């Protein structure tokens, strides 16, 4: 049964009661909350996700709740709990859904040591994965959303999960986080894009999430072979430039984007060598999706390098 198969009233009651268990691919997450913004966000963004038996095993137990009864009514605030602990400061209730998404990213990146986890988006075409590894503000999520609209399968907007045994990339196709100008850029570019409620005044500015496409959710169990790594960089001057990056230099840069390279030690080194070795690697500066998305489309269809 999917989230969309349950009536809103029934869903909200289960969310506020024993919680809902979402199958996000490699991990099952139980979320419990009586906060309206969380329920609304989950019903929209996770509509196509399967619901698991709420008494079954879950990897992570998340609760989002108001900080106090008083704060439910007076400038309401919410806290994020993971396995009973509060890792962050409270935020206004209006920011509850973005907080849930960021909190889930944090939970997975700090606990999922069965994978090497990189800070990067991953997309797939014909079984081959494109990793977009970048620092915040580089336009990674904007580019990711543009590629999804162009037909690439979303594996993840934020977390590249590398299987330690085989080096394949696992899918965890959750909503794509968009910030500030990128919200309108993606809306204008994307004919198929579904963007949820806009949330203002967060620590990252104005944010909204893009709902993952049905196909990406349905195929979340399918991993992909790493084929390309791109270090994207948005530039306001709008010039598109592509540079090939050496594998040793790229490897070192990727270690910087890894959340758990140090604790995984040798196995992380070996997994990252396998991924780096398998990929064509580029640094791409771009000023708009109109140029870079077709370029990456061509890359995926050609056996020849693009630089």
């Amino acid at each position, binding site marked *: 049964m999917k989230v969309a198969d349950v009536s809103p009233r029934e869903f909200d009651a289960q969310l506020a009661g024993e919680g809902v268990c979402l199958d996000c691919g490699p991990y099952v997450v139980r979320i419990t909350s009586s906060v309206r913004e969380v329920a609304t966000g989950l019903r929209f963004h996770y509509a196509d996700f399967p619901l698991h038996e709420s008494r079954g095993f879950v990897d992570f137990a998340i609760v989002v709740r108001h900080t106090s009864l008083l704060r439910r009514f007076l400038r309401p605030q919410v806290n994020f709990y993971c396995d009973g602990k509060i890792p962050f400061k409270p935020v206004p209730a209006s920011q509850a859904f973005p907080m849930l998404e960021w909190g889930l990213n944090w939970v997975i990146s700090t606990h999922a040591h069965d994978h090497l986890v990189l800070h990067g988006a991953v997309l797939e075409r014909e079984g081959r994965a494109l990793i977009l590894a970048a620092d915040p503000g580089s336009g990674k999520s904007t580019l990711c959303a543009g590629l999804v609209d162009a037909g690439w399968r979303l594996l993840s907007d934020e977390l590249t999960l590398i299987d330690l045994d085989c080096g394949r990339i696992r899918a965890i196709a959750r909503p794509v986080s968009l910030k500030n100008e990128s919200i309108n850029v993606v809306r204008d570019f994307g004919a198929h894009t579904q963007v949820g409620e806009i949330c203002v005044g967060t620590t990252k500015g104005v944010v909204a999430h893009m709902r993952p496409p049905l196909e990406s959710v349905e195929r979340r169990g399918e991993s992909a072979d790493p084929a390309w790594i791109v270090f994207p960089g948005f530039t306001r001057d709008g010039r598109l430039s592509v540079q090939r990056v*050496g594998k*040793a230099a790229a490897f070192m840069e990727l270690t910087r984007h890894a959340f758990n390279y140090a604790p995984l030690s*040798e196995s992380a080194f070996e997994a990252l060598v396998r991924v*780096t070795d398998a990929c064509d690697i580029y640094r791409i500066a771009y000023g708009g999706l109109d140029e870079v998305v077709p370029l990456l489309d061509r890359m995926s269809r050609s056996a020849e390098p693009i630089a």
Partner: protein
Amino acid sequence: MSQLRLGVGVKWQAWPDGCVVFSAPLAQTFLLSPDCEQIFTAITGECSVGELESSCPQTAGLLPRLIELGLIERAA
């Protein structure tokens, strides 16, 4: 000089633009010059350290630093 081996917990991978070397004891990854591939290849037996010293003395000159870091060890 020929009795050398890879340091304990050390892994390496060479590419044309450099050689990445991981040391578990140091919990550190190094980006070294591509020349280091010849040294690691030599100590794993595909060519001898003696051959390396005679054919590429400059590359062999990197050995002391690799030994100092514990990436390569002298066999007992």
